[in-house]
């Protein structure tokens, strides 16, 4: 079975997040996770985990031959609080957010290997549990498919 274009996009995002490593010059190692069940993300408590969630999709433009979709993604990066931490939690959140934004937008990464276009939208700090903080980077991905085939690019 072939892969829908939007699924290609999600996989591209996973690959980009996984490539954020100290060895590659970033501030920390990040690991992408796509929830396997609804609300499973609440059980994930590992520092450096980035939960990639798709939000409700919207039609951006429609033509006689193709459809342009605007697919929002939320990239929730977890930053665990630590008694031994010596840097401010906001500093760590700023670094995580900046690393994600840099990786997504640098070079031609924002084209997602030709499947779409990444557009940064917003970012918000969140506290999930007493010791789990994080930063959610909200992005839109604009992509085009054929009007009668979401498996084929428009």
């Amino acid at each position, binding site marked *: 079975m072939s892969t829908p274009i939007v699924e290609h996009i999600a996989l591209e995002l996973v690959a980009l997040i996984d490539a954020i490593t100290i060895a590659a010059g970033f501030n920390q190692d990040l690991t992408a996770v796509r929830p396997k069940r609804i609300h499973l993300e609440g059980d994930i408590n590992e520092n450096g985990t980035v939960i990639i969630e798709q939000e409700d999709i919207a039609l951006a*433009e429609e*033509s*006689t*031959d*193709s459809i342009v979709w605007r697919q929002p993604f939320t990239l929730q990066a977890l930053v665990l609080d630590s008694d031994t931490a010596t840097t401010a939690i906001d500093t760590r959140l700023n670094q995580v957010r900046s690393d994600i934004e840099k990786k997504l937008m640098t070079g031609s990464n924002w084209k997602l290997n030709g499947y779409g276009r990444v*557009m940064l939208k917003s970012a918000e700090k969140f506290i999930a549990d007493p010791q789990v903080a994080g930063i959610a980077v909200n992005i839109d991905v*604009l992509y085009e498919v054929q*009007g009668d085939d979401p498996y084929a690019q*428009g």
Partner: protein
Amino acid sequence: MDLRGATLVGSVTGALGKLSNIDYSGLTADEIDVTNADSPNSWNEYEGGFKDGGIISGDLLYVAATFNTILEAFAAANETWTLTLSDGNALVVTGHIRSASLSVPLRDAAKTPIEIRVSGMPYWPSSSSSSSSSSSSSSSS
């Protein structure tokens, strides 16, 4: 009815695909003011003069090859353009692409709006029988 299934094809240029909007407007006639001192009850009077076939305006989602086709057809000789709607009816006109532009926003889909200037009489084949019957009745009278 909506735009789905519609096509815009030039006899020389070929099909211009990815239509996201079509407007046909400007079908107008010159007015000849024939108001005179004997006009009944002092109402202005007019007669129709020369007619203008108007303009077909279209928005197309950007495709590099299509934009190149538009540039090559820009301001060229008149050709036959056929706008076929999803109900099978078609507007057939003679005209040329009189304007084209490229809109590339940062956060939206790129588009290439065009305008086709209609020259002469537009033709709506599905209504040809009624127009020909009216013209024959007027000539017989």
